[in-house]
């Protein structure tokens, strides 16, 4: 198959860029633990209220530098009492759903988690600036989808 000389140059340049690009993404992901939200833990969607940590949703301090925040999403809101967390500490969010698919998305941050019934989504995040952040659902979940939101206060 004949390839024009310029096409060879163009394709080689493209493929090398591709390799460099994917290597950067892959190395930062797997050597710096920079993954998108996810997790392999499962849960019975009908027994969320009886299953730890969702039987006691909200903020729990794990050690000096780590906090866990457990949240239950349901149409159309979050069971998340008094969300107050400190800036500069690692916050581990764990979210699940009692009904349909939702999201747990904190505006102005990189926390953007899909919440799937039967699964637990996990994401660690450290807030840099104190303030009141808007939390909203960005996955369609029904008539009241656009009223599904709450707030988290970072101090």
């Amino acid at each position, binding site marked *: *198959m*004949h*390839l*024009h000389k*310029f*096409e060879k140059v*163009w*394709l080689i340049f*493209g493929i090398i860029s*591709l390799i460099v*690009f*994917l290597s950067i*993404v*892959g190395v*930062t*992901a797997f050597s710096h633990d*920079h*993954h*998108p*939200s*996810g*997790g*392999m*833990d*499962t*849960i*019975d*969607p*009908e027994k969320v209220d009886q299953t730890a940590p969702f039987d006691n949703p909200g903020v729990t301090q794990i050690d000096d530098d780590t906090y866990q925040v457990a949240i239950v999403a349901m*149409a159309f809101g979050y069971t998340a009492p008094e969300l107050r967390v400190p800036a500069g500490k690692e916050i581990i969010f764990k979210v699940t759903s009692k*009904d*349909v*698919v939702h999201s747990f*998305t904190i*505006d*102005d941050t*990189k*926390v*953007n*988690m*899909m919440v*799937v*019934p*039967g*699964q*637990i989504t996990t994401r660690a995040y450290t807030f840099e600036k104190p303030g009141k952040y*808007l939390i*909203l*659902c*960005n*996955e*369609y*979940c*029904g*008539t009241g*989808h*656009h*009223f599904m*939101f709450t*707030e988290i206060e970072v101090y």
Partner: protein
Amino acid sequence: MIALQDRKLALWYIGVAYIAFLIGTLMGLLQVFIRNDKLQLPAWLDYYQILTAHGVLLALIYTTFFIFAFFVTGMSKSIGTFGPKVRLVSWIGFWVTLLGTVLATAMIVAGEASVLYTFYAPLMASGWYYVGLALFVVGTWISSFALIGHYRVWRKNNKGELSPLFAFMTITTIILWLIACLGVVATVLFQYIPWAFGWTDTINVELSRSLFWFFGHPLVYFWLLPAYIAWYVIVPKILGVKVFSDSLARLAFVLFILFSIPVGFHHQLTEPGISNFWKFLQVVLTFMVIIPSLMTAFTMFANFEISGRKKGATGLFGWFKKLPWKDVRFTSIFIAMAFFIPGGAGGIINASFQLNEVVHNTLWIVGHFHITVGTPVAMTFMGLTFWLIPYLTGRKFTKSMQILAFVQIITWSIGMLLMSTAQHILGLLGAPRRTAFSNYNNHPSAMEWFDGILTSHVTMAVGGSILFLSAMILIYIVAMSMFLSPKALKVEDQVEFPMAESDKTHTPKWLENWWIWIGIAFALIIIAYAIPLSSMIMHAPPGSEGFKTW
């Protein structure tokens, strides 16, 4: 001109496509005003019903019906008139597809299926909605098999010869479609239908999502490849050149069969139930599709330059001025290609593993597919529509229609530029997609989304209104070319089907050995999906009951 019966089939497909286009774009217009709090729907109509209709009618119905119209015409033109069997099966396919469409649309209108076109479980629509979707897919399969049958007749009569480029590309697209649909057919038939009719109590949500995206991503290549056929085969003819390289064109197309399917996880990067290793593997496979895209980009510019130089252009960029800008068949497709540059770049961003968190489910994504399927694909289809309908009806594409066609594509471009730019930036600011008007209790971060100059829901509405105006001009052009424009009685008035010559003397024969490509495609699918899907089944949590939350 092709046989009357084949023209009739193609025209019916186009007719349905543009009815869907008319209703779908109207739904789009309503949406931009609702999101901006300038319109409140009556109690019997819901925003999410409109949103579902907009997605289904434009992304599925308009595209699919138009694609089959294009394929029927092009196959009849390139490899000959359909035989009686092919014709019969094609019509059965058409009616089954239409029946599925009508059933699904009726359920949406009745408010029984406000589940959007992704119909994520455990939102549960009426079982008939899923039956409608299944019939739609089965109908397209029947039509696909008719075209494959027609192609096989040609192969039998022309032993040892490579098929014409148009036919080759049509068959490639159809193979891609048949394999892609396996995912959606599996989930609809074995998961959704038994569950929605109450034969099973629960559904495995994560599995259904993964099977949907097995289909959902190659679906975009099913839209894109027919546009590429136009770029590879139609555009050179309009430019007055041959196909740049027959073998590279064919190679690019078979690479799309390989690299468009085993990649659906890049739509699921921020969700649980799939380990990071499999997410990343599919990200890598996703990016392989850049290679045939680069080949296509090279070919397009090579065509432009060769054509320009043939017309006497000099200097590095002189050819640009010599392009046939006054020919709306060309200019429309050129604009479509130009939109695909930022569109493709945006796609790379979306699929970039961690980076996806910044844009996932925000308005950015809405902006992204309006400058991929909504313009590169849709405007290529418009550019085809201008001559395809007159070609099929034997009417003139009059001077006044040509001017109107220019007005149409220019308004579409302006409207889309405004709307998609606003959507992209709003998405970066965090505004969610698929959401009716909400200011989240006057939250300051949400209020930002309404008062920017370019970055506001107002700009989106202005763009959307211009787009709707453009859509109505197109409907007028379609109606004129279908029923009212004067008949082309003289030969010089007749509209041609521009199909460029392609020199296949140096094209290797193995490119048309489909079993090689289907075999590699399945091998890649098994590598990408076998382990994660089986782990979803074996380690499944208790399933979910259905919910009707609308």
